[in-house]
């Protein structure tokens, strides 16, 4: 199980291996940090929010997004190809009938390019183990009380796909322009632990 390793035995082992690789000339000093920085660069929940706002104003985009998210997000200048290989993105849309929530029970898989680095609670064993069993209870602890008639779909990112939730457009936002709509969307909304 993964978790916070900052002072753990495995951290010391990783630093030791890194030092050996550098000593043998297989790795430049600081290269791993540089690669991680490159991977994280530009990753922000503002990206996911932009996708959502476009989907709210453009039903055609929504349809393309739900059918093939990797291709659709290129229309707003985004991509899942920032890592070693392009990761498959699946966007799941909330409706009046169904609310979606994302977890990675095995570790902490997450679409960093669209949501930025994941929050600590997403990586916690409590969230990962409980949300698959009792999503309604966990969402309630996040302050999200769903109507009894709304079913819940949990998505476990157990393999190579990454997930993002498309929240429902809040009522009373008909007059807002796309950029302001994006400002309504939160990281929790994109994971499914908030309504928007």
């Amino acid at each position, binding site marked *: 199980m993964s978790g916070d390793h900052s002072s753990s035995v495995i951290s010391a082992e990783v630093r030791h291996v890194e030092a050996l690789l550098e000593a043998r000339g297989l790795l430049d000093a600081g290269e791993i940090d540089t690669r991680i920085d490159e991977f994280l660069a530009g990753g922000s929940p503002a990206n996911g929010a932009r996708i959502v706002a476009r989907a709210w104003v453009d039903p055609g985009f929504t349809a393309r997004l739900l059918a093939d998210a990797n291709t659709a997000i290129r229309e707003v200048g985004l991509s899942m190809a920032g890592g070693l290989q392009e990761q*498959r993105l*699946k966007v799941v849309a909330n409706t009046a009938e169904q609310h979606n929530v994302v977890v990675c*029970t*095995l570790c902490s898989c997450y679409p960093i390019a669209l949501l930025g680095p994941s929050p600590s609670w997403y990586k916690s064993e409590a969230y990962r183990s409980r949300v*698959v*069993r*009792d*999503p*309604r209870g966990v969402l309630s602890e996040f302050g999200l009380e769903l109507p009894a008639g709304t*079913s*819940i*779909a*949990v*998505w*476990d*990112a*157990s*393999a*190579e*796909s990454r997930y993002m939730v498309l929240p429902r457009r809040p009522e009373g936002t008909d007059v807002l322009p796309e950029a302001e709509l994006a400002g309504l969307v939160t990281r929790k909304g994109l994971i499914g632990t908030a309504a928007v």
Partner: protein
Amino acid sequence: MSTDRFAPGDRVRTRATDPAGHTRLPRYARGAVGVVVERAGEHPLADERARGRSPSAQAVYHVQFRAAELFGAGDHTVTVELWEDYLTPIEEAR
């Protein structure tokens, strides 16, 4: 090699065994019956890669389970992404 044994709507049972090493079949989803909802590309089996091997790619699927099937209670669904190797057609499993 693309295998593609399953299509959306197929009922499948997941492997029940606890492997000695790494796997991406979560414990809570073992030995359970679910429905294939979508093919999710093809990738080398993570279990084999973790053992230092270079397996060929095989199909990966989104498989949806009812919470009651997994945990004995609950009215939600859980959709897990599973490699073909983890899955048996439901007819064969019986």
